């Protein structure tokens, strides 16, 4: 069933929609470069990597962004390490372990968690979480606090989207596993996870993007000190928090420097996406066939 002539308008409409969706990114990138341009000319990109520290509004401005890049990477990586197993476990629980009634409640709960505003997470982190960490290792507002809050925020994304992927495994696979007398865990490990791994991977990537981009909650719990973190308990500043903290108060060169933070953030994401693109492509995987492959040739 390749699209017949009557289907062409539909196909072109879909293409137009997709092109529009894809173009938004280009528009944002172009806009970021435009705003960052003055800072890229003077002081120039090298200052963002080699200056002693970050004092963009000083009389002798310094623009080192490396500590913020390190902060963003550390917080994101930590949160991924924590949230990925928990999120997948939550998805597996809801799909394979929980009785239907509980599973449905559990899903509802995850959706609610996804909808709590980041201010509320940040608020809770600042009032409840950081004092707990402070008793252990002051000052409390730290990389660890950022990792914990971020994990909490991206967990629902991983869990809900993974669950969608798990639910979409053809029933025959699971019936086959049952017929072979596989235990529940063996079924999950041998059949369900491999069959759904594409969807799960994409949920993890989406969550990683969210973790890199999260602003308000991190700003409230991370301490925001511009320094490469030397321990879990050290306060850190992420690129996003840097933008949010200073943008409303920045003029001219300082403002352009903040847009360079935005560009670097975007570069990190492009790197992440390229990496995942590469991983996913090399993997023969189980990319499901789609309409075009299921076609019955009509035109000979």
């Amino acid at each position, binding site marked *: 069933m390749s699209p017949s002539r009557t289907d062409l308008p539909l196909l072109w409409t879909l293409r137009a929609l997709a092109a529009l969706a894809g173009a938004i990114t280009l528009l944002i990138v172009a806009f970021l470069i435009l705003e960052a341009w003055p800072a890229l000319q003077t002081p120039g990109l090298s200052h963002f990597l080699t200056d002693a*520290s970050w*004092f*963009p*509004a*000083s009389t002798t401005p*310094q623009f080192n962004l490396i500590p913020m890049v390190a902060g963003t990477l550390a917080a994101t990586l930590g949160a991924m390490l924590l949230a990925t197993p928990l999120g997948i476990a939550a998805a597996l629980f809801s799909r394979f372990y929980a009785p239907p009634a509980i599973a449905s409640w559990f899903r509802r709960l995850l959706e609610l968690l996804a909808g709590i505003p980041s201010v509320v997470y940040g608020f809770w982190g*600042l*009032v409840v979480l*950081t*004092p707990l960490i*402070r008793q252990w290792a*002051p*000052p*409390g*507002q730290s990389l660890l606090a950022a990792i914990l809050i971020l994990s909490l925020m991206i967990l629902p994304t991983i869990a809900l989207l993974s669950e969608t992927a798990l639910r979409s495994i053809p029933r025959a696979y699971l019936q086959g596993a049952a017929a072979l007398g596989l235990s529940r865990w063996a079924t999950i490990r041998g059949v369900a996870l491999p069959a759904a791994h594409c969807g799960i991977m994409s949920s993890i990537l989406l969550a990683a993007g969210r973790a890199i981009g999260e602003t308000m909650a991190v*700003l*409230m719990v991370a*301490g*925001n*000190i*511009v320094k490469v973190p030397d321990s879990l308990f050290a*306060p850190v*500043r992420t690129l996003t928090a840097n933008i*949010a*903290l*200073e*943008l*409303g*108060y*920045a*003029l001219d060169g*300082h*403002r352009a420097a903040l847009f360079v933070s935005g560009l670097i953030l975007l570069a990190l994401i492009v790197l992440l996406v390229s990496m995942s693109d590469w991983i996913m492509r090399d993997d023969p995987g189980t990319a499901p066939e789609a309409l075009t492959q299921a076609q019955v040739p009509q035109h000979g």
Partner: protein
Amino acid sequence: MCRARIRLNALCAFLLLMVACSGEPQQSADTGALTGQLTLTGSSTVAPLIGEIAKRFEQTHPGTRVDVQTGGSSRGVADARRGTADIGMVSRALNADENDLTAYPIALDGVAMIVHRDNPLPVLSEEQIVAIYTGQVTNWREIGGADAPITVVNKAEGRSTLELFLGYFKLRNEDIKPSIIIGDNQQGIRTVAADPNAIGYVSIGTATYEASRGTAIKALSMGGIEASLENVRNGSFPLSRPLHLVTLGSAEQASALARSFIEYAASAAVSDLTEAQYFVPLTH
């Protein structure tokens, strides 16, 4: 084409009329003849106050609309320059390179040093504060407190409270060794209230209000003068700042509506609102 021309002419006539009207003496303004829309953007410190003033202004001047947007002092300056906003809100004095704007003070605010309520030290000298913020003193024990590391809370770059603080203590931001950097006042209050070893500085009205309702902070006196709104009002408290509205160009270049709003915002008719937002009104 023809219709467009007519419209254009009508528009011109209308504009001329507007100009003519605004050239008239402002007697009719108070009777509600002012109409139109004003947009204000800028300082998040000033925005809640102006929001309340705007509501009362709209009530007393039917036919006007005043939209208040927040974002930061520099945004107020930038938007007023670009014309995105009719009036900018700025919580500091204007810089030397901002003389293309006219600033109108509408209220006063002060900055107070705060510590946790359980901190045994009754007062800190200015030298001690400088020593703490520059990292020469890192433990409360060294200045007679408990044996605990000091959590130094500083404000993020660009905030006018930071500039005021640095200016008063003659410090450079590069010299400060902070443990935590915060954005807004309430974040500072919460950080200090949650940490018995913390020291920070916030807007004075916020500090006295929070202390009075039982939040675990206390404001320190500065140079022997108690940190209170009363002392900001009588001018004796050293760390105070004006809150400004700014317009592009000279005062005459502002629209009649903008001028009338600015006058209203600095008048005694709204001093109860100013006090309700924990600032000090100028008229007394």
